[in-house]
């Protein structure tokens, strides 16, 4: 579904992504782990188009999307979440998701009918919010949500556009144990519907969700394969896992 070939990016002399290649098949969860500063978020930015790559190619469902802008990639089916929650604070929870559904549905150059009463968009948004467990917070203002709820809203916004591929940048960041466990269950369910590239520090989540695992260190993938294999890879252990395991 998603294929990345030889992606590179430098900031000055610092090479933050060095010839990264990876592929994501249908219904697959590919996790990327690595120490802080390894270039994980940079990689997500490059794939989603927020950052331009110096070299390399991003293909989505066989189509080259490297030359497309951020919004064009989203329209092409590339959804993402942010490590640092990024929502529309003054909008209601429902409207945050409805406007994401609106981008998919089209018709955003309509000037007169009140959008808040658009039943099709609201129903689509409500369905997604029910799915992530925010059904009883739909009328709340997004700025008033708790951190855990915001993480769920972040995910709901990405899901509302019905993406073909989901890029998840540390979805568990800052969550407590029970919240994390619930989110892992939810992602495990979603994995059957949408392939995902998961950047995550939470090892429980990684080993529960990932079909494949890549270890990113200093902008390079040093090990890649099924989680059990990577766990036993000496290089990967030394670079990252060793510190915790």
């Amino acid at each position: 579904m998603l294929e990345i070939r030889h992606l590179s990016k430098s900031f000055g002399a610092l090479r933050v992504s060095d010839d990264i290649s990876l592929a994501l098949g249908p219904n697959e969860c590919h996790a990327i782990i690595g120490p802080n500063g390894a270039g994980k978020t940079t990689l997500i930015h490059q794939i989603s188009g927020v950052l331009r790559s110096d070299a390399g190619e991003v293909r989505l469902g066989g189509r080259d999307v490297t030359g497309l802008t951020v919004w064009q990639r989203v329209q092409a089916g590339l959804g993402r979440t942010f490590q640092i929650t990024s929502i529309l604070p003054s909008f209601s929870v429902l409207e945050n998701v409805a406007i994401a559904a609106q981008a998919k549905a089209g018709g955003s150059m309509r000037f007169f009918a009140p959008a808040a009463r658009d039943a099709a968009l609201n129903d689509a948004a409500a369905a997604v919010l029910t799915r992530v467990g925010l059904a009883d917070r739909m009328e709340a203002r997004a700025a008033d949500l708790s951190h855990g709820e915001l993480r769920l809203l972040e995910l709901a916004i990405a899901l509302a556009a019905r993406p073909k591929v989901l890029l998840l940048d540390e979805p568990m960041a800052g969550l407590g144990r029970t919240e994390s466990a619930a989110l892992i269950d939810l992602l495990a369910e979603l994995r059957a519907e949408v392939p995902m590239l998961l950047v995550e520090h939470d090892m429980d989540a990684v080993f529960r969700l990932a079909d494949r695992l890549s270890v990113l260190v200093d902008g390079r993938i040093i090990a890649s394969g099924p989680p059990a294999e990577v766990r036993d890879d000496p290089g990967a252990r030394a670079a990252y896992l060793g510190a915790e395991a």
Partner: protein
Amino acid sequence: MARDRMIGAAIFATLLALPLLLPLVGADYLMGLLIKAMLLAIAAISLDLIIGQGGMVSLGHAAFIGVGAYTAAIALESGIEEILILLALTLAVTALVALITGALALRTSGVYFLMITLAFGQMIYFTFTSLAAYGGDDGLTLWSLATLFGSDVVQNGEGLYFFVLATLLATWAGVHRIGLSRFGRVLRAARDNPQRAEVMGYPITRYRLVAYVIAACIAGVSGLLMMQYAEFVSPAIATWQRSGDLIVAVVLGGLGTRNGALLGAFFIVLMEEILSSLLHEWRLIYGPLLVILVLYAKGGLADLMAPRAKGAG
């Protein structure tokens, strides 16, 4: 926001009823004052679409008033008198100017957007001063005015008053509708969090440009009506200080609120009139008054009259 709507309805009902009462208190003077306030309100409401809803602070909005006024005046001079044709011309020319300047200005944001709109505004202003055939610096007195279907009903007095009132009502209702529409929602999303709006799949610059052009067109219409009311156009209509007045009206009234720009414009015109009739150095009072209002009524006049739930909108 039922209370907002009631306040708006009350303002328009008052404006509708006043001409019937005015003969009792000296009609011409008050009617002129109200027309001036309504014309400023039309432009201020249009500016609120880009500042309040869009988060783009333009310091060149008065230039579009000028483009509208000069387009209409030049067309009048060349013999076109039907106001509906003048309206169409005004809309076409302002839209074109806004499309070009907006497409360039929207490559920036924040304070740079403010500077570049100021620069375009000044360019347009100096273009007017150099129109020697149409009065240059001194402006142009119009010997004939626009007609509606050949009738002089929109040339002065009550006819013009109601024409301006109808335009104001259409602007007030229309801009509100746009704000609530699918388009307006995207515009507000781009104000709240541009990166998020983009990652939702929206080409935000395109939406901002459309809003910019719509706002310019409405300002252009107010320019046409200002020309018709004053029977005169001059570059003074398009100075950057006038753009500043519009920003003051919008901020003072309450950014992105239903009645804010309307209230702000009326407040400015009426305060200037009242204070300047009382005192020669009226600005000494007007200035501190603005400071107090901005400090202590952060939501603007609209918020004073109908307090909103904290942070809503």
